[in-house]
């Protein structure tokens, strides 16, 4: 059934159609082998299968995904409905249902991104120009929120490092700073002074160039919905979710560690690095375990699971922090 798939690389990963196929197959088995033959052939109709896996048609344009399965965790995924209706995007309100509820008036098209700072190529680029040379890739990542819950999410996007390299950052580019769009008229949460708008985040340049860092444009094979950071957002799976700056309008190569929104608001609670680390608790709550939001059905019991160093990506990223005291630089 999966013979057409590219071979998976590495032990952590699962060929993409397994996630699409698994749940469908379980259902189909109950319905008989005819259904199995049609419904589970995700290689033939991946988008349809993705839609079914989420149980409701996924809104937004389907994306031409060129590569799948290179980075895919094996744990059950979070439903599309949960990813898109339970998240933090304070520009649309502080409740986790607020972004889905109040983001309908947001306009992610047309979109452009300003590239600035220490690079040979700078300027304003349309989203299309920014992404054009890069094949879209689907990656299933864990997402760990600093609040103590987590999801497993199939993003679509391009490697951040691949995009950044095209602008030829100079040796002065030690960090990047990324900024969210500033549109209070379309983002009702911005009308209250909860955070110091616009939202800013940053990465050290080697973190930004790491192959796991993703510039995401889609979710479940479709364009990002407004509430999840349309049309372009950052996904850094080994860091707490707040590092994943949404609706990006500016990327600047800078020499000094940028001032980032949550870190500025409460530096003792939200570090610049914000690497997922069960050994370093948030001053107000434990980070040793997390409540996993995933799968279907009755989800009241048995959701808690241990939090892994670097959110389970230690093999890939721990070397970035060799010699650093992660208790101090949390």
């Amino acid at each position, binding site marked *: 059934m999966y013979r057409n798939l590219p071979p998976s690389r590495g032990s952590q990963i699962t060929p993409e159609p397994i996630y699409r196929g698994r749940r469908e197959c379980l259902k189909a088995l109950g319905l008989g082998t005819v259904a199995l033959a049609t419904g589970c052939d995700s290689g033939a109709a991946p988008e349809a299968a993705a839609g079914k896996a989420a149980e409701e048609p996924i809104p937004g344009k389907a994306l031409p995904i060129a590569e799948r399965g290179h980075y895919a965790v094996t744990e059950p995924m979070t439903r599309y409905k949960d990813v898109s*209706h339970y998240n933090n995007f*304070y520009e649309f309100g*502080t409740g986790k249902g607020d972004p889905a509820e109040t983001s309908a008036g947001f306009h992610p098209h047309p979109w452009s991104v300003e590239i600035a700072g220490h690079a040979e190529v700078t300027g304003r680029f349309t989203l299309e120009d920014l992404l054009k040379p890069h094949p879209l890739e689907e990656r299933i990542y864990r997402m760990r929120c600093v609040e103590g819950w987590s999801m497993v999410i199939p993003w679509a996007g391009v490697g951040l490092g691949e995009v950044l390299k095209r602008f030829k950052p100079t040796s002065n580019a030690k960090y990047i700073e990324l900024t969210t769009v500033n549109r209070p008229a379309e983002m009702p949460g911005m009308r209250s002074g909860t955070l110091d708008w616009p939202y800013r985040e940053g990465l050290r340049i080697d973190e930004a160039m790491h192959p796991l860092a993703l510039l995401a444009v889609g979710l479940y094979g479709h364009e990002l919905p407004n509430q999840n950071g349309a049309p372009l957002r950052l996904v850094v799976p080994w860091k707490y979710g707040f590092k994943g700056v949404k609706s990006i309008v500016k990327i600047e190569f800078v020499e000094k560690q940028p001032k980032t929104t949550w870190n500025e608001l409460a530096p003792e609670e939200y570090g610049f690095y914000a690497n997922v680390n069960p050994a370093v608790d948030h001053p*107000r709550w434990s980070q*040793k375990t997390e409540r996993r939001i995933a799968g279907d059905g009755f*989800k009241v019991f048995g959701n*808690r699971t241990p939090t892994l160093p670097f959110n389970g990506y230690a093999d890939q990223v721990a070397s970035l922090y060799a010699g650093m005291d992660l208790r101090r630089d949390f």
Partner: protein
Amino acid sequence: MHIKLFRDRIAALKPLLFAACLMPLAWLIWDALHDGLGADPVAQLEHRSGDWALRLLLATLAVTPLRRLSGRADLVRFRRMLGMFAFFYACVHLTIYVVIDLGAYWSQVFADVVKRPYITVGFAAWLLLIPLAVTSTRGMMRRLGRNWQRLHRLVYVIALLAVLHFLWLVKADHREPLLYLAIFGALMLLRMSGRALGVRRLGS
């Protein structure tokens, strides 16, 4: 022949209040069983049970000012039930946290109580409610005499701890817990102004 089911109107309204106080729990269970709690049902169970514990605690504190404002001294007869339901929802809240949320990691609760100020104050509020619940019977009131009232003044501390518990867990948007703090403050002011103005005490 007219059969009198209840002694008076307050007695007649008590079963209604009892049923009303159970509604939030019924609603919570219904939602839990019908996928009505959203993506993270455990967080919803925690928040909603905690909300009701706090609301009922403040309702209990509102009884005395209400008696003064309305001139209806017999409202005090609702107070014990409101207080007991505040304790009941605090127990539900704690149980959800330890049994459902922490689950297999329940022993983490000890570290939480010691290390997390918001849990420390929340747990303290629950602990302090226990002696009040235990001494809420008519017999205990008689036995403790004047000390009963002294003991039950703990409810002011408990309410403040409960509000702090909420305030300290919030990440950035403090509006909702501050609203509860304002209500608590207003209720305390009403009480104090009542005393300062020498308003006739309505026996208790």
